[in-house]
């Protein structure tokens, strides 16, 4: 039994990797070859799809747009959530528990419910088709999440540290940026990771709130699928490229993921 322990995770990873492999496999085939029939490897190996995506602005701007609003959202979420998480962790105040619960319920708000009202709201504010609109709308679920994770990390820092700093004559903003933020550095990293992740994978709102200027890669993919026929090779390559940023981010935070899950109570 003990010697076959590795079998379960290995089989699971195989199960996870097969669809990814299939996507990769297709991305190196021509559309004709894909539609021609089943094959394990590309017979006519080509990187044309990748070349097209990386040279055609309507394609690669989709990635740029996505990354812009994701980064924007991550910055907004973390910087807004930090003081709030501190307040929830250190102070009691009128209505704090209800407020915290209300925040959390928004993590559970189905985007499908909000898609249409969001469109009206952001159009009314004149933000339709901007990166900011998407970034702000993703705050709906990312800020509650960020507050929740950060609150967990901040509660792990003994409050004596705060008190010592005040005694040493630090003002609150200086204490917060010079002493406190470095202390919860890994917490901020984990939070940023999760904000990035949830903003990157969400597409319903991103698609609804944009048309041309801030069009995310997902929208580019679906629109290409409907206008230029069914270019499977191109779509597969685009799909592979959407996995890349996520994979890079995971690699950098691999040692914090488990800890973040445990401490942040995601």
């Amino acid at each position, binding site marked *: 039994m003990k010697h076959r322990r590795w079998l*379960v*995770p290995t089989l*699971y*990873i195989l199960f*996870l990797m*097969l*669809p*990814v492999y*299939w996507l990769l496999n*297709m991305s190196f085939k021509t559309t004709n070859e*894909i539609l021609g029939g089943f094959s394990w490897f590309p017979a006519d190996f080509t990187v044309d799809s990748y070349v097209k995506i990386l040279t055609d602005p309507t394609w690669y701007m989709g990635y740029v747009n996505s990354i812009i609003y994701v980064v924007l959202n991550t910055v*907004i979420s973390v910087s*807004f959530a930090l003081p*709030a998480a*501190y*307040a929830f*962790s*250190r*102070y*009691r*105040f009128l209505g*704090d528990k209800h*407020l915290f*619960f209300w*925040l959390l*319920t928004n993590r*559970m*708000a*189905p985007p*499908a*419910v909000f*898609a*249409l*009202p*969001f469109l*009206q709201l952001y159009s009314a504010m004149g933000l339709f088709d901007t990166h900011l609109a998407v970034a*702000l*709308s993703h*705050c*709906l679920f990312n*800020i509650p999440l960020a*507050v929740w994770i950060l609150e967990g990390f901040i509660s792990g820092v003994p409050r004596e540290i705060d008190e010592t700093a005040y005694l040493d004559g630090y003002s609150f903003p200086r204490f917060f940026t010079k002493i406190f933020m470095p202390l919860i550095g890994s917490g901020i990293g984990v939070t940023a990771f999760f904000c990035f*992740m949830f903003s*990157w*994978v969400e*597409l319903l709102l991103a698609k609804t709130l944009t048309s041309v200027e801030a069009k995310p*890669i997902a929208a580019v*993919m*679906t629109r290409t699928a409907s206008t230029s026929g069914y270019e499977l090779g191109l779509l597969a390559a685009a*799909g592979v490229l*959407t*996995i890349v940023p996520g*994979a890079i981010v*995971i690699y950098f935070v*691999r*040692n914090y*993921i*488990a*800890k973040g*899950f445990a401490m942040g109570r995601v």
Partner: protein
Amino acid sequence: MQKTLNNKAWFMVLPVLFIVALNAIVPLMTVVNYSVQDTFGNNLFFFEGTRWFSEVLASERFHDSLLRQFFFTFTILVIEVPLGVGIALTMPRRGFWSSVCLVLMALPLLIPWNVVGAMWNIYALPDIGLLGYGLNWLGIPFDYTQQPVSAWFTVILMDVWHWTSLVVLLAYAGLRSIDDNYYRAAQIDGASRWAVFRYIQLPKMKHVLTIAILLRFMDSFMIYTEPFVLTGGGPGNATTVLSIDLVKAALGEFNLGVAAAMSIIYFLMTLLVCWLFYTLITQGEKK
């Protein structure tokens, strides 16, 4: 840790409050507004009271999608939670291989949801997809675009593929928090593998597992993009879960009143379950 009473803390919460309220309250009010009115275009609205609500609650279509929703959520929970725990238990606990496992397993979580749908859309095709082709090759007739059973199988398998890793990571985090001495003590006490799981590992994972179930419940309840891209709710209405039905009603048929009323019923249900879990978790923390 004793918290101090300080109502000025409100100022630190205000920015968050503002931005979330903008995103939550204004749209919610819009939805509530729609749910009690009717329109014939031209921005003319008529107050309809609870008509849409009674209509939705009485409609067979809503009952069907709700039923499908519960079936879906129940099935994936029953599969993903035990599977996730099992994998976390057999994973290397530390070292290089555990990092490799974590990175590879977290990968599906970071793939945009429409790409997940598109990937499985192709992967499960009976003629050119590995899964569809493979199943047919094994003699199992499989075509998710035609057979409701195949479609359900694919939707569920996709969700298992997409989200089991979340349960694995949470359970793994719970297991990591167990001190080695617990295992040593159990060994000395002559505990069986099952007893170690039952009395050491499971109690330590209880908290993270509650979170895992909560998250998977909520997320599966509002799932939209992946099944929409995969099957579009079909064949027929076979895999039309709540969100898909909602968007169909709102954008496809422009039945705003019905869609809004559905949204609110839907939202209240998630809220209720969320509240139940939240109470459960905070109660657990107090002990």
